[in-house]
């Protein structure tokens, strides 16, 4: 079986218009890739929302990136100032990957 090494999985729920900003910050943190996943609806302290393509302002993506500890830390540092103003939800958990040198 191929060796699997632990890396960090970071997921950030982010408004569609702000996703490019997150991508830019992940590049600055040295993270080499990411994937965006569309979400449909949700609810939080600020009320509920639904995917909305006509205005486009209230659609949300899950930004998913896998990185090593160091880059993950750097990324979390970079997005910390945006947490409140951008309404981000940040999840971080360990995951095993094959070919760990990629991340």
């Amino acid at each position, binding site marked *: 079986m191929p060796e699997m090494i632990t890396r960090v999985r970071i997921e950030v729920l982010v408004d569609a218009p*702000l996703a490019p900003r997150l991508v830019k910050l992940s590049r600055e943190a040295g993270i080499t890739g990411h994937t965006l996943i569309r979400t449909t609806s949700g609810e939080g302290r600020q*009320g509920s*929302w639904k995917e*909305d*393509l*006509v205005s486009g*302002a209230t659609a949300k993506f899950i930004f998913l990136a896998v990185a090593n500890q160091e880059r993950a830390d750097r990324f979390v540092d970079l997005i910390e100032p945006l947490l409140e103003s951008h309404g981000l939800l940040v999840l971080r958990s360990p995951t095993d990957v094959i070919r760990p040198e990629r991340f």
Partner: protein
Amino acid sequence: MSDIAATLLSAPILFFILGVLAAAARSDLAVPETVAKGLSLYLMAAIGLKGGVEVAKAGITPNLILALVAGLLLSALIPFFVAPVLRRFGRLDGVNAGAVAAHYGSVSVVTFVTASQVYGNTGFVVAGFMVAVLALMETPAIISGLLLARRYAAAQNGSGGSGIDRELLREVLFNGSVVLLLGSFAIGLLIGEPGFEPIAPLFRSGFTGVLCLFLLDMGLVAMRRLRDTRALTGRLVMLGIFFPLVNGVLGALTGTLIGLDPASAAGLAVLAASASYIAVPAAMRLALPQANAGLYLAMSLGVTFPFNIVIGIPLYRMIAETLGGW
């Protein structure tokens, strides 16, 4: 009043009302987001094309230039009247006041499209060049709203919006709806009536029908937004009706003063009275992420949009006709 009745009894408006009622009854009726987006692209392409074709026929007149300048000024200046009212009467903080104000300076494409259609069906025809005015009015208000937000913030602690970076500038200048409207307008200008003929079945004959389906969705969306929001106060609802009234009168007056025919003056009134829910919300998420998106969408989509569709459109016509009759 029979004007209002005639408007209310036209198919697009009735579909809008059906959407509102369905959402109010918590029906699960829904138009898929991607379909609604497709319909809105169609409407923008069609209105742009038709405007361009008409200008190709009528030629570029001084009226056109005057209307463009007037539209630009209205879009840029309305936020300066709206924002202080939002702060004082609406009790919003500076950032939210700036963000909401930008919406009211800008325009709603669908409100304009619906008005043109409803007016046109009774022989009250808005000039083709008003589409160019529509496109031009989308973005100046964004700059004004940001200036206001920054000025307010600076008065407090010196950290307003993050300023206008490249990302935002692109959003403002090359916003999808602006590009599509102006691009289709230019294409209409280039191809003229003969070149438009092969595509007229889709873009002219199909238009009112598509508008019905789109307004059905807008009714659902507007009502659901009103229902789900937590940010709307009674005062803000009042402002969501007060602003279009004042701006509509302002637009009708301006249009009449610069010599537009009554229908085009009514068109300018509709533009001034309407509030954006496409270009501006996206720009505000970028430039003022700390502003409450639920708030500005609830006001523009949930309050002002329905008011304009049902009451504003016939009202602005009456005002423009009265002013034009002087």
